[in-house]
């Protein structure tokens, strides 16, 4: 845990700035909270990934990763998710330029790409299920579905957040700094993407 260092660093950062600023560090509370949350999510996904890594080889003869993976398909959906990170960053950058119209468009595009990814995952799950890989079939299947399912739920929550944000921006329902709100959702979204970067390599590309 690097908190020692964080905290030791901090005083230098805000120095004598007290009084003028709203906060000790001059940073946004929300953003601090978000990064902390993302830091903690590392331990959540780390645990799920470790469980998968431990159990990836424990399955019946013909229902393991090597038999099931469809790399071209997964690559395509990974690509889609990666591109959604680009559109997300464009949304944030529009929002910072106070161009809410563009920001909303990019947010919507991001949500669409995200939905495409989730649709891909649903398709993948159904295919695997048809091939006989139920949730309870083996250690591999339980841990695979749990890991990717958790990620899928994160993406879905992200999509809901993106769409809600678009609606709220349209209806003027976002209190406070709109650009920051977009940025917050953006951080979450990128994190989900980053987790998939790990999953794509560790789960799909590295053979069992």
């Amino acid at each position, binding site marked *: 845990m690097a908190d020692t260092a964080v905290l030791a660093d901090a005083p230098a950062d805000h120095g004598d700035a007290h009084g003028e600023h709203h906060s000790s560090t001059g940073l*946004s509370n929300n953003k601090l909270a978000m990064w902390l949350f993302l830091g903690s999510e*590392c*331990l959540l996904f780390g645990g799920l990934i470790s469980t998968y890594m431990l159990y990836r080889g424990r399955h019946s003869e013909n229902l393991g990763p090597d038999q099931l993976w469809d790399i071209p398909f997964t690559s395509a959906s990974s690509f889609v998710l990666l591109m959604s990170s680009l559109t997300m960053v464009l949304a944030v950058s529009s929002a910072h330029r106070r161009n809410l119209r563009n920001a909303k468009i990019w947010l919507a595009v991001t949500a669409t790409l995200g939905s495409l990814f989730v649709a891909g995952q649903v398709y993948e799950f159904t295919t695997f299920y048809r091939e006989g890989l139920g949730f309870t079939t083996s250690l591999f299947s339980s841990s695979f579905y749990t890991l990717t399912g958790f990620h899928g739920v994160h993406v879905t929550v992200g999509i809901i957040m993106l769409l809600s944000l678009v609606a709220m921006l349209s209806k003027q329902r976002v209190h406070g700094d709109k650009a920051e709100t977009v940025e917050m959702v953006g951080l979450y979204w990128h994190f989900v993407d980053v987790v998939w970067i790990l999953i794509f390599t560790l789960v799909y590309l590295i053979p069992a």
Partner: protein
Amino acid sequence: MSTETVDHTTEAGHAEHDEHADHGWSDGKYIQLAVILAVITGLEVYASYADWLGPAFIPSLIIMMVVKFVAVVMFFMHLKFDNKIFSWLFYAGLFLAVGVYVALLVTFQFFNR
């Protein structure tokens, strides 16, 4: 927690925000980075089919993964431009996770008897 982000867009810390935006990149650069990331992804997929990598296969995959990870975090997530405290908070969790879970897997994989 995730829902919090929607609404916790408080009135706080806004003054700094516009500054932060300046630290970011132009849209063009973001697109460039995205292209690079796409290319690396392509390479990863290629690597998983290529036989000639031999023992370098897994390390090369891991390296590409890390590069992608870092690129997104640093640039798309602005960590490189933002206050160091954010980096500390996030990397604390990240490195802790890597350290602890690698140790866990190691106890299972090796010294296990």
